[in-house]
């Protein structure tokens, strides 16, 4: 159906009129807004729908159009005029701007030089500013501040401030920093600053030294007031060894005189109101006097060492200078001390006192050696006086010994010790006893003992032998035994006497042997057996039976044996009187026992011989009725 319609339409289009018609018919008036608007507008124009007006519509509209156009024109006329005026204004402005631009250009051209100059100046200023900062930093590091210089120079009165050491340390720091500066290419500055600082340092040290010297000079009180500042000063002065040493010397000199004064005061003035009393008040008592002096010296040395340690507490490796200085300080008292002790020693005669003094000095030598160094004058002095006391003591001992030998006493009738022996032994006892109470080390003691013993015992023994030389054998033996016994019993109480005792024992033995054989011989002699015994002993050289010999016949032997028998009944009757005079019970017993042994031995020999049939004794049983065993039993 669509195709048919389409065909219709195409046929219709071919007809213009139909086309027009169609077009009109197709027009939907109510849809065409423009048309409606136009018609509405037209309706306004057409005030009344009359023919005339319909006929005139066109001209009316045209007229209207004309009026509107005229109005339009006049309106645009005004607009144009306005625009023209605007154009004029803008043009004027443009001219003005161009003028200004020109002028600006000219001005810019003119100021360009100025600007570049300013910029360069600005840069320069910045550079300078930086330089200033660098310079300030440099000065800060390498220059002293005004007040520091002032501090280093010090006040007129020479007072020293604690800041001084800070300033001094800074000068030192700068000086050492300069060495770094010298490594860079700032050598001139480095050298100059270094030189300046060296000058400052020197004057600083010099001032410090002067101050320290002054301070030290004032330290003469009993106990010096060592301020922390002074310690710091000593620490700082360590960098100048010479000044350090001089300052320390100054201190030493001041202390030395203080110590001497203190010593003399203690010796002569004593304490307040006389307590403690002056040391010299006891000068009559050598031990007390010397001991007090030494104790004072010991205490002073200990105190002085403390003060020195305080002074040098900030200094490193100050040990040697401390010891040297302490030696110097204590040197002052050496002379007054030595003079007094020497006086004591020289005027003292008593060996015991001298020995006690010797030990006291030895003890203090050891004690004070823990405080002062071995090379110090004080210790040397003590050593010297100790040596003197040692010599004086042995001098006194040998004097005593020599006196013994000069005037030898005769032994008394009881063969006991002579007074000089007992006296000397008492002296020895006193000496050794005070050694027992002494305070010196064991080694020294042993050495001393040896020397003392040889100094006393040897001459003593010599004296005994000399005095015994005028006696007969038995008396001499008994006397010697007694003397040695006394010496022995004295020595046995003390240490380190063993060798001596052994030697004395050997001498006693010899004397005991003598005495025993004398005793045995005496017994044999008294009972008439001497001849028989000697014959028995010599039987080897004799031919034939002994009974044939003269004085060896049965009767003689028998009568002698009878006498011997009565001796056996009362053995004490034939004891030598000298044996009873022996002082030592033990020795007395020994002599008795050994002489009995000797007698028994002799009897045994005689008995054996007589009982021997070879000697042709008749009835030997009756001749020697007692067996040796019986004899031994009876005698012991």
């Amino acid at each position, binding site marked *: 159906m669509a195709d048919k319609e389409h065909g219709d339409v195409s046929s219709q289009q071919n007809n213009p009129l139909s086309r027009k018609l169609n077009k009109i018919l197709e027009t939907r008036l109510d849809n065409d807004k423009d048309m409606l608007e136009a018609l509405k507008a037209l309706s306004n124009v057409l005030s009344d729908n009359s023919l005339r007006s319909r006929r005139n519509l066109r001209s009316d509209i045209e007229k209207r159009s004309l009026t509107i156009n005229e109005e339009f024109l006049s309106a645009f006329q005004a607009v144009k005029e306005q625009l023209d005026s605007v154009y004029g204004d803008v043009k004027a402005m443009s001219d003005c701007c161009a003028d200004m631009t020109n002028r600006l250009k000219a001005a810019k051209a003119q100021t360009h030089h100025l600007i570049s100059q300013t910029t360069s100046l600005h840069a320069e200023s910045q550079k300078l500013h930086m330089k200033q900062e660098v310079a300030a930093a440099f000065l800060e590091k390498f220059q002293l501040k005004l007040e520091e210089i002032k501090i280093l120079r010090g*006040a007129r009165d020479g007072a020293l401030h604690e800041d001084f050491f800070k300033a001094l340390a800074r000068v030192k720091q700068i000086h050492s920093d300069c060495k770094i500066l010298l490594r860079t290419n700032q050598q001139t500055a480095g050298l100059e600053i270094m030189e300046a600082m060296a000058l400052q340092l020197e004057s600083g040290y010099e001032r410090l030294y002067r101050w320290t010297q002054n301070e030290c000079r004032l330290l003469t009180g009993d106990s010096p007031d060592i301020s*922390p500042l002074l310690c710091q000063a000593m620490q700082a002065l360590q960098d100048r060894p010479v000044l350090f040493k001089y300052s320390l010397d100054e201190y030493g000199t001041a202390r030395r005189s203080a110590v001497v004064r203190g010593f003399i005061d203690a010796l002569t003035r004593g*304490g*307040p109101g006389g*307590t403690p009393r002056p040391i010299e008040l006891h000068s009559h008592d050598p031990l007390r006097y010397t*001991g007090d002096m030494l*104790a004072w010296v010991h205490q002073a040395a200990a*105190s002085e060492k403390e003060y020195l340690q305080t002074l040098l507490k900030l200094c490193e490796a100050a040990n040697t200078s401390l010891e040297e200085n302490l030696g110097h300080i204590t040197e002052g008292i050496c002379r007054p001390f030595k003079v007094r002790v020497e006086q004591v020693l020289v005027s003292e005669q008593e060996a015991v006192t001298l020995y006690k003094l010797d030990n006291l000095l030895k003890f203090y030598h*050891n004690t004070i050696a823990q405080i002062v160094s071995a090379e110090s004058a004080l210790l040397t002095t003590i050593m010297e006086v100790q040596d003197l006391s040692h010599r004086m003591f042995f001098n006194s001992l040998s004097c005593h010994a020599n006196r013994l030998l000069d005037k030898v006493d005769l032994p008394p009738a009881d063969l006991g010790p002579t007074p000089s022996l007992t006296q000397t032994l008492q002296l020895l006892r006193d000496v050794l006893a005070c050694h027992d*109470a002494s305070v010196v080390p064991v080694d020294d003691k042993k050495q001393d003992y040896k020397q003392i013993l040889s100094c006393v015992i040897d001459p003593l023994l010599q004296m005994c032998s000399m005095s015994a030389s005028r006696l007969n054998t038995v008396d001499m033996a008994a006397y010697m035994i007694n003397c040695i016994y006394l010496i022995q019993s004295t020595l046995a109480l003390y240490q380190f006497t063993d060798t001596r005792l052994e030697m004395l024992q050997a001498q006693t033995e010899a004397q005991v042997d003598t005495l025993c054989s004398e005793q045995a011989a005496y017994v044999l002699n008294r009972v008439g057996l001497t001849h028989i015994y000697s014959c028995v002993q010599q039987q080897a050289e004799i031919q034939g039976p002994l009974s044939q010999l003269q004085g060896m016949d049965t009767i003689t032997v028998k009568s002698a044996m009878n006498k011997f028998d009565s001796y056996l009944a009362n053995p004490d009757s034939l004891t030598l009187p000298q044996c009873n005079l022996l002082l030592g019970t033990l020795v007395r017993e020994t002599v008795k026992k050994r002489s009995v042994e000797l007698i028994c031995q002799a009897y045994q020999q005689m008995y054996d011989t007589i009982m021997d049939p070879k000697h042709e004794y008749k009835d030997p049983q009756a001749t020697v009725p007692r067996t040796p065993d019986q004899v031994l039993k009876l005698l012991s």
Partner: protein
Amino acid sequence: MAAGPYNYSYIFKYIIIGDMGVGKSCLLHQFTEKKFMADCPHTIGVEFGTRIIEVAGQKIKLQIWDTAGQERFRAVTRSYYRGAAGALMVYDITRRSTYNHLSSWLTDARNLTNPNTVIFLIGNKCDLDAQRDVTYEEAKQFAEENGLMFLECSAKTGENVEDAFLDTAKKIYQNIQDGSLDLNAAESGVQHKPATPRSPISNDQPPSKEGCAC
């Protein structure tokens, strides 16, 4: 720098006496080192220690001489009484014999020191109460009769040790304040250091104590 322990106004000299083995050296060691010294060897002659204490705001340096108790050193130690400001007389509460010898020590102390010397009686080893041989009351009475100060101490535990040394110093200081102790004499056992040193330092600077509290 701090003023350090070396600034002191006085030096007091002490002496410690008493029988052998009562613990004199241990007391000294406890006081100076604050430690107990076991197996302390016998003192040979005299030994010496120092410590700085404070009494009534004054720094005082104690110079203490510790003597040997053995009889054989008696002659030596007697010389050290001279010029002591304080004497500490020690006995052992567990050994009656050491207490019985006190009167002889006291006689020595009275004869050899000056009348102002402060004598302080110490009963040592009070830690060994189980082995006690001398009662507190008895010793206290002895001290009162003889005008001595008295405390029981233990060098081992440190009990009362500090007090004994300090009380002695306080008493000496008091004597100085009373004027009964004459400082001008060198052998009073007390040495005074003037509060205003002669050195020009102090003229233009405050005392170093205030100057550096750091």
